[in-house]
């Protein structure tokens, strides 16, 4: 009965599991390496990682990063190096979340969190300043009023770093090659990244 087959199909759908998710109420689990809004990290002792080298600004294809470096005050240094990022601004109306800034950064100062749900309502809010990007005293990203953070989402602020081995070197994989972060310590590497599925 070719004419009636379609009716069976639609009727069977009535009893199938729904694929829809109740989005604002419940969220899908995000991938660990999702490119979200940036954070500026600190070392475990609370010092800022950014040294104001402007490599991120130079590499940014969207020209959305503006950095000004400044010599550290001698008696109260902000970063362990010679200079620190004294102005750091990212314009999220331009940012394309390509993560090239994260790759360029020599000190792992800038990484991306998993947050992409932020909806500002004016252009000034779109420009995140250094104060807004820096992690707080616990090493967690600052939560701005127009950002939709959920429980546990502020945990993974540097996924990209641990997913990559320098220069694509497979042998290097699962070897910790990154510095510790305030509040999190030295993060463990992801497992099972190698082509043979192995790990330490």
């Amino acid at each position, binding site marked *: 009965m070719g004419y009636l087959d*379609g*009716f069976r*199909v*639609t*009727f069977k*759908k*009535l009893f*199938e599991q*729904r*694929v*829809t998710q*109740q989005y604002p109420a419940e969220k899908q689990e995000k991938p660990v390496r999702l490119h979200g809004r940036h954070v500026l990290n600190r070392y475990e002792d609370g010092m800022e990682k950014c040294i104001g080298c402007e490599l991120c600004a130079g590499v940014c294809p969207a020209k959305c990063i503006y950095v000004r470096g400044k010599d550290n005050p001698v008696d109260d240094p902000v970063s362990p190096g010679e200079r620190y990022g004294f102005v750091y601004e990212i314009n999220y109306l331009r940012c394309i979340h390509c993560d090239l800034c994260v790759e360029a950064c020599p000190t792992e100062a800038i990484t991306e969190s998993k947050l992409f749900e932020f909806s500002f309502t004016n252009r000034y809010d779109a420009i995140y300043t250094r104060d807004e990007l820096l992690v707080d005293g616990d090493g967690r990203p600052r939560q701005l009023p127009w950002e939709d953070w959920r429980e546990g989402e502020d945990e993974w602020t540097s996924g990209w770093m641990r997913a990559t081995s320098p220069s694509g070197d497979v042998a290097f994989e699962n070897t910790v090659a990154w510095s510790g972060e305030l509040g999190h310590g030295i993060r463990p590497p992801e497992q099972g990244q190698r082509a043979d599925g192995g790990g330490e």
Partner: protein
Amino acid sequence: MTPLVDPLLSGPIGLQEILVVVFKVVVAFAFLMVAVMFMVWFERKLIGDMQNRIGPNRAGPWGILQTLADGVKLFFKEDLLPDNADRFVFKLAPYLALIPAFLIFTVVPVGGNYSTGDGTVSLFGEETLLQVADPPVGVLFVLAMSSVAVYGVMLAGWSSGSKYPLLGSVRATAQMISYEAALSLSVLSVILLSGTLSTSGIVAEQSQWNWNLWLTGFIPFAIFLISGTAELNRPPFDLVEAEQELVGGFHTEYSAVRFALFFLAEFMNTVTMSAIIVTLFLGGPNGPMFGPEWLQSWVLPSLWFFLKLFVFLFVFVWFRATLPRFRYDQLMDMGWKLLIPAALGWFLILAGIQVASDNDDINLALVVIVGVAIFFAGMGLLMLAMRSSRRQRQLSGVTD
């Protein structure tokens, strides 16, 4: 046997009788509005389920207040009147679509015990039928009103002064008029068997499980269901609206309250058409009767009626979820070359059987066999003629 007129109106008519009638009108109106609200929600929810979605679920529990929210929104939107519109007709058309939908429902018996009683109930001490009106020409009234509703759609498209609505209304006119014929011819079979045009009379004739569905041999029911769907402009016959081709069809230029009225009329027509099918073919409120007197007169008949109604509402949504839209020539082919000949032929067979069963000299079985054989032979010949003419057209390169 039911009385020829509603017993409420057979005696002297005083204030109380008028109040009872007014009460019935108000209740029917309220029911229909609630039913439409429910139907819109039900359709969206069910079609969502059939497409593996959730459907409306924000307003109220299970999204049941979604229709109300949409209605309120439409009431507060700006009411546009196109510059090229024929202002009077443009304003009139929504009411021409809506009011017949209301009026059709008034002749549908929604309850009353016809199998062990005479279908009347006691309302405020008055014996009356559970329908707003019971004209002796009920079925004709239904057909007349559904024809008036065509004017609503046709005039809406014509008066908009815009090309898509015009195309939609041209389609509507052709489609609804040709399917109206098949619809009426299938109703004829019911009228022939019941011997009455009154809706309560037709229901009373089906009171002992002798529903017209099988008495008329299923084919008129199938024809009525198909041409009823076409009459409602519901998918797969929604060429009149055909969003993908005609923007919104006849209601492209309508907005706000006037659009809401069209929307209301469309879903109200779905409800009333289902009610008419139940009345004509499935015995209306007839069904198994048991229990005490109040259960038999008030609860059970209405329960059966609404249950049957619900089945057809489900079927209409199911059609929509399953079937793709007809092409215009396919629609016309089906109406004129299949449904109308089938309805007419079947009506002739039923008439022959009716004559044979009334007359002892004629062998009934022979009439049935010969009639059905001639029917299918005729349909076969028709199919053959259509196929050969199509081949002719292909040979001469008119169609592919």
